[in-house]
């Protein structure tokens, strides 16, 4: 909090954005042919690849968790060793990776219509190619697009965004520098049309009275994210349909 100025006097952030501005978002659906659904999302410098396999018969090590009325969701999260500024080898069963995978699994367990796919398993694989803050949010957005690509039924889009508080102003879509500056960071996954918060986590200290403000800006950021994601899906569908009709 001391030393690094997160907001300049003119109201611009370190990377030149306004406080309520999201980073540049680029997304693509259907990047892999092998997977049932896949997507690639770039949020500023954070780049994530997501692939979905399923619904399929549960694999041998998940046999014990078969449920007669819903599907099991298996999530694996992996951060490449070249993804951060300093090269760091991350082993497979790393605590932070397992924790992040568990969070994403819980997010989607409440949003996918699991009762439509009994006795099956849906796999979500996430790979971070470059990490520049808001890893969880980029992963959730990428997984949502991949699930849409796979044709799995969901209650609504799941859009995630992060926000922080600096000098009384809320900053939306935190990057790595702002994350490590020591301010509180609130990430949330929201279903925009139903206007419900599906998952939320807060790191760092935030006064009770300020939570409302930060939550509001997170929800607004998620709605902006939703607009971009919906446009991407529509463009992808138009492109796929035009390929059918022209050939």
């Amino acid at each position, binding site marked *: 909090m001391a030393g690094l100025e997160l907001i300049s006097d003119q109201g611009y952030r370190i990377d030149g954005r306004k406080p309520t501005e999201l980073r540049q978002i680029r997304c693509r659906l259907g990047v892999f042919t092998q997977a049932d659904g896949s997507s690639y999302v770039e949020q500023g410098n954070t780049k994530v690849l997501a692939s979905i396999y399923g619904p399929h018969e549960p694999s041998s090590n998940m046999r*014990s968790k078969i449920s007669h009325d819903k599907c099991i969701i298996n999530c694996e999260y992996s951060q490449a060793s070249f993804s951060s500024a300093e090269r760091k080898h991350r082993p497979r069963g790393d*605590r*932070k990776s*397992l*924790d992040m995978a*568990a*969070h994403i699994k*819980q*997010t989607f*367990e*409440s949003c996918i219509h699991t009762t439509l796919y009994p006795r099956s398993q849906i796999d979500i694989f996430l790979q971070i190619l470059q990490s520049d803050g808001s890893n969880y949010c980029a992963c959730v957005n990428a997984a949502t697009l991949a699930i849409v690509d796979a044709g799995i039924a969901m209650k609504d889009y799941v859009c995630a965004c992060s926000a922080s508080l600096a000098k009384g102003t809320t900053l939306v879509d935190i990057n790595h520098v702002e994350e490590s500056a020591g301010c509180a960071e*609130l990430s*949330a996954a929201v*279903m925009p049309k*139903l*206007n*419900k*918060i*599906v*998952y*939320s*986590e*807060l*790191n*760092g*200290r*935030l*006064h*009770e*009275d300020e*939570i*409302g403000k930060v*939550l*509001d800006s997170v*929800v607004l950021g998620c709605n902006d994210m939703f607009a971009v994601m919906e446009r991407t899906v529509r463009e992808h569908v138009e492109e796929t349909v035009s390929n059918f009709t022209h050939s």
Partner: protein
Amino acid sequence: MPLREPTLSNLENNFIVNAVCDNRRYDGRRITDARDTQITLGLDYGCCTVSLGETKVMAQVAVEMERPKESRPSEGSLHIHVEMSTLASGNFDASKPGELGIEIQRILERSIILSRCLDLEELCIRVGERSWAVHLYIHVLCYDGNILDCASIAAITSLKHFRRPDITVEGKTVLVHSIEERNPLPLTMHHMPFCTTMAFFKDSKQLLVDPTRIEEKVMDGKLIISINNHKEVCCMQICGQVHISKPQILHSTDVAYLKSKELSEFVKNVLTDDLKYKQNGEKEQQVSLLCKRKKIRMKTICVSFTTLLQKEHYTHT
């Protein structure tokens, strides 16, 4: 080899959900009541066992000297280790932490380490060369739901109870004084964040504080808030099949704050009593205090949780 957890029957499931819809719980508590908390401090500094109803968690603090991290040469470090042994519950596997173990460890790390609750700069001995590494071991002894709340009380109490050896730095040598030479020093804690877990039922319209094991199996999702005495939220997590709105979150933080305030007072009293016993030379005495949690009555929470738009006032009896 861990046992498979027995499935809950539909009858039990429906009974609990219907009771919650009527604002009642199967063990007779109110929806905002936590179970009875009991703190037992051991003979050694830094050892503490906390029971929340039938859930029991033991915490122990130990220090060792180490070389500080290169990116932070003037700070010590705090490491939290959580052990979910099979003695707590047949389906825990001691070799793998499992989803629950990792969640507890990560939330305690975020609530205690990331919120800068412990002063790490005070743990530095020689900048860049030597510092204290504090290790906090949490062992779950008995699982009856809501390990996290119990573990957070145990962690904070044992950190506050702990005394590290006094040292003298002479040039390049560090002299560690034994307990007979000089009094050991306490760790500096800026604030005490306590976690409160709230379970959501019935499409997130009803919340329960401090779910038991059976309620945890039946719940839709949960909201975990770690808040300290100064109304600062140190960690918050919403997970499971929960669809909640902003007024519900803000209301839950109010509930969590009242509980945290009560717990802060209780822990301070336990520690001062223990100090008195130790000063009187009653070394064999094990301090054990029972706290009948005061029933915090919140008028609006007893009514349906969705009618939160009016400003609430609560009475504390």
